[in-house]
């Protein structure tokens, strides 16, 4: 099914290009070579996948527990701020302490922002996490603006940006000789490690079992003596930790300073990544690389085939549409049947009952 959504997206995108009188084959060739055509391109594509993997894992953990964290973008930015702050404040620290400290700060910030606050709000006053994570996300982005626009994190001078992180806090590039001057940093290993850890936690620990149980059927989980509010907070917390880590890794490995754009879009694309991967940690790797390739290749597509880079947004949109309609269809048709406990997680992960 995910493959089908991707293919339909690509084909329909091609049809639209043809209607607009572009050559879709030339466009896709350019797209592909832009994404994978050279070691540098491959490096950049993988680098682009890193924040998607991390944030996507976070969203998947929440989905598995039946929760919809749509504020990953804001968690990404609080993570980025925390990492940068630690990153430029202690220039004399040894690398081995500085990087973990900065990343730890990013995770903590993301976790509190995305998890603890919305989680507690949900567990104790019933505030829906879709609203709270989204609102917290706006707040995060506005705080980030404030920080670098004449705020406490603005670098000396008139440009609204933060100081650059100290060399001791940066993630070194991977195999610079192979990927030449691409953006691929050690953050890639962190992302891969995160996939492994999330996979192990979800499927090999009692914690993961309980998270999934709460997600599929909260009533049965309660009956089983599980503390449903606790796992709600925990799942949203882990979700925020991973999204915050995405921001930290990106800043320490690729961007090195905050500039006042604050529109990574990673937090939103990561939702699609999680959906497309059906919350499977390994699937998230491939879905992330796919979307990173689309965005990396779109520049070259614009230059070489003259197709607007926005075309890739159209393709992405179509894919989202197909992934979402399929999942949502399942969701509603289950909702319409009482006495069949179902949950967002069951649907989104594709593990709900299917009677044929």
């Amino acid at each position, binding site marked *: 099914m995910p493959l089908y959504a991707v293919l339909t997206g690509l084909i329909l995108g091609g049809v639209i290009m043809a209607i607009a009188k572009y050559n879709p084959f030339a466009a896709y060739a350019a797209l592909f070579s832009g994404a994978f055509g050279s070691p540098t391109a491959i490096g950049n594509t993988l680098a682009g996948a890193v924040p998607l993997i991390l944030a996507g894992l976070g969203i998947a953990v929440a989905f598995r527990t039946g929760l919809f964290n749509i504020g990953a973008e804001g968690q990404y930015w609080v993570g980025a701020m925390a990492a940068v702050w630690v990153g430029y404040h202690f220039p004399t620290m040894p690398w081995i302490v500085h990087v973990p400290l900065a990343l730890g700060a990013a995770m903590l910030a993301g976790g509190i922002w995305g998890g603890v606050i919305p989680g507690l709000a949900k567990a104790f006053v019933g505030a829906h996490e879709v609203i709270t994570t989204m609102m917290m996300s706006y707040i995060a982005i506005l705080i980030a603006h404030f920080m670098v626009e004449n705020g406490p994190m603005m670098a000396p001078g008139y440009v609204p940006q933060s100081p650059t992180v100290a060399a001791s806090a940066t993630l070194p590039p991977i195999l610079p000789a192979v990927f030449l001057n691409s953006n691929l940093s050690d953050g890639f290993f962190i992302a891969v490690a995160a996939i492994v850890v999330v996979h192990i936690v979800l*499927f090999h620990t009692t914690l993961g079992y309980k998270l999934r149980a709460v997600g599929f059927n909260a009533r049965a989980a309660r009956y089983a003596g599980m503390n449903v509010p606790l796992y709600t907070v925990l799942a949203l917390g882990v979700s925020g930790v991973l999204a915050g880590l995405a921001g930290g890794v990106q800043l320490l490995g690729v961007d090195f300073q905050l500039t006042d754009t604050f529109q990574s879009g990673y937090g939103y694309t990561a939702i699609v990544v999680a959906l497309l991967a059906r919350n499977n940690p390994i699937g998230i790797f491939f879905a992330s690389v796919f979307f990173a390739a689309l965005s990396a290749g779109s520049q070259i597509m614009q230059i070489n085939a003259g197709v607007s880079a926005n075309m890739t947004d159209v393709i992405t949109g179509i894919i989202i549409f197909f992934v979402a309609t399929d999942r949502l269809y399942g969701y509603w048709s289950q909702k319409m049947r009482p006495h069949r406990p179902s949950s967002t997680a069951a649907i989104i992960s594709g593990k709900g009952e299917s009677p044929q």
Partner: protein
Amino acid sequence: MALLEIRGLCKSFAHVVANADVYLDVEAGTTHAILGENGAGKSTLIKMISGLYRPDSGEIALDGAVQHFASPRDAILAGIGVVHQHFMLIPAMTVAENIVLGTERQRDAATPRQSRLLFNRKRAAASVQELSESLGLPIDPWARVETLSVGMQQRVEIVKALYRRARVLILDEPTAVLTPQETEELFAVIRKLNQDGIPVIFISHKLDEVRAIASTVTVMRAGKTVRTAPVADATAAQLANWMVGRDVILQSRKEEVAVGDSVLEVKNLSASDDRKTEKVRGVSFSVRRGEIFGVAGIDGNGQTELVEAIVGLRKVNGGSVHLLDRDIGHMSVGERIARGIAYVPQDRQQDGLILSFSIAENLQLREVSKAPFSRRGWLTRAAARKRAQQLVEEFDVRPPVIDASAGSLSGGNQQKVILAREMSRNPELLVAVQPTRGLDVGAIEGIHRYLLQLRAEGRSILLVSLELDEILSLADRIGVMHAGEMVAVMDNQNVTRESLGLAMTGKWSEKEAIS
């Protein structure tokens, strides 16, 4: 010629052949019972007749014309009306909306016309009311389905089927959720439908019911139809034998067990339902070692709330609950599990199971943090699977495939998974609500034997059941709930059905209780 003919239907799933060469002839104006063990394939057959599943091979013919149902809609239009084992109503909608749903644009003489664009609530409600009253199944068309009792919801399902002008009505285990009175009412409706020429296919595990209402019975075993016979010729024991393939002991025998100290002490307990109406009012009783304490009562008299307060799912308003002299009234569910309370809940799909988890995963639901399911937070899959395999065999879950999802099991086998999990824990106290609901006679025999074995081992059992027979044959003492109070506690030795019935309806005076 039969109105509905099934010829050689087959249907396989990943792990099992659910229907293998099924034949069935249903004559107009008769009630045709289908009997079969849990997992024999009854519901699967019904789902094919109603267009939910597509047969792998074979034919369905209505009035001699072969039908190909691509969807439930096709089946409905052809005149198949079904009330499924698990209802298919939309809880947030009103009765009338549920009934009319999907027929809004159907135009013919009998169904009231709805305009193409606008849905006329009043007209829908009026037509629903009229139909339901003419059937002798009065319901309030404006009530929201989620506020209705199960019996009422079933009524809505029946009216819904007939509103769509069903020519055949199929009822999949309709009485499993009904009180004896409701069952009688349902039978009256079935007889009336028969008089109008509408045949009814009736699926039940209760042999007495089959004998009371059906004229013909078809027995299914392991996906095959093995026998069709007139009901009049068969005794209950014979029916059971055809179904299970061996003799079944319908009456369980109890050995003498010396009762010990009290294990569960409930004193003056009160609790409210979700709408904050007080449902349990000052209930006191105790369950002793080696004793089965039965709670009888008409559904909705506080049994559910009482049980939930004991197992920790409902807050206690007042009074106390002691387990082995420890006050557990304010402990969490988890702590009570750890102290040895096992619980078989009434609603297996909502509370007892996670349908998308495998059987193995469901068997560890209540104790995942303990051996053999995990060690120090790590799932120990191999050990858990071994245990699951044992339990599945011991409790005869079919198919015995521990990786099959709980949602793919037949209703009765889902129940067996819950029973296997709860009974195998060697609990101090087993709280079982309707433990044999939906089980076939063979399985009931097994469960009863198991309960009696627990009792013989000196465990305590709190058995809540709507089936008087079950309570009378198993319980040592019987507490009767009426309007939230335990109006009588009687010794099973000197209890009669009549005195129980009187107490259940609240017409019991204390004076008689003393005798």
